[in-house]
């Protein structure tokens, strides 16, 4: 693993605060994920890809925008691995870079409608932007 790749891997693991090696590859997280069909990399792959240092692939994957943070994978994982924490960490690794926000303030007005609660805007902004 190159130096940069290794550093990135360490940052993601530290940000997630969980140990990918605890995974026993049962796939229960991906069995339970409501966003499975929208993702190219699935929750169990996030864990194994972080362990393997394939962080850039995850950062460039649309999966990081599709995770609903519903915590179903966190709740049901038999090993306490928290795949959602790795997805969050990969997303942060991207949006913490300058100019890499997924949702920009100027894009928000176009997305508003009569019923959309403020909560949705704040959540999306927190998840997609820094």
């Amino acid at each position: 693993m190159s130096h940069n790749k290794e550093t990135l891997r360490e940052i993601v693991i530290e940000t997630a605060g969980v140990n990918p090696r605890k995974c026993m590859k049962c796939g229960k997280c991906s069995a339970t994920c409501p966003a499975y069909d929208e993702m190219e990399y699935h929750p169990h792959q996030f864990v194994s890809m972080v362990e393997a240092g394939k962080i850039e692939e995850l950062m460039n994957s649309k999966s990081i925008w599709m995770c609903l943070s519903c915590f179903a994978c966190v709740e049901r994982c038999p090993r306490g691995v928290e795949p959602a924490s790795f997805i969050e960490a990969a997303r942060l690794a991207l949006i913490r870079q300058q100019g890499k926000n997924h949702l920009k303030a100027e894009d928000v007005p176009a997305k508003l409608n009569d019923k959309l609660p403020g909560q949705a805007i704040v959540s999306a902004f927190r998840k997609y932007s820094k």
Partner: protein
Amino acid sequence: MTFSYYPGCTLKAKGKDLETYAVKSAEVLGVTMEELEDWQCCGAVYPMAKNEIATKLSSVRALVAARDKGQDLLTLCSACHHVIKRVNNDMANDQNVQLKANNYMALDVPYTGETTVIHYLEMLRDRVGFDNLKKAVVNPLKDMKIAAYYGCLLLRPSKAMSFDDPENPTIMEDFIKAIGATPVVYPYRNECCGGYVAMENNEYATQKCNTICTSATEMGADAIITACPLCMYNLDANTTENNLPVYYFTQLLARALGVEEDAQ
């Protein structure tokens, strides 16, 4: 019974019904909700990253304010409850967060998670008691068959939320019984509605909400209740099949207590 109350931003705008009915009902039940002064938006999603501190500070401020008043902190919106409760856990258990937050805020008395965060439903169950609620009901909703929609944020992760059994919860069903209606149990009551992803992908939320509403309908429900404005939005605006009327649980509470009209 008096609580410090954290409303959250949505409850002052699109989700104000959730609050109005809650406050009115609380009065009937002898509960006073003292809104915190100068509260700030909790951020709506819990910052999961271990190295996020600043995004947790608004929750800490609310928690400190409640502590300084010597009151438990009552929440109503599922998202606010989730965020504040988990930040409180961090302040109690995560030394890194505790140290840095206290260091930044330079409080007179450092905060280490002393405040009890309690959701309105928990307050009904654990403080008022569903039996007492039942006694206070003047207008039991006898003909309603109601499906409780829990969503994600109240239940999960159960280790942090300790709200109810995360896979087979009963608190909202017990609430429905207490207000005289019939609860309808269906398997998707704890599956996600599509959440904030609806912002950029409506179809996605539609898919999730159609599954939820179809399942509830098939099980015989004629209405759905929720405690979350975003769930309300998705279930209401993004459902295309088997639409059911969606209510904030507080509206039906107010109806059962005979104060629905007063709240308007």
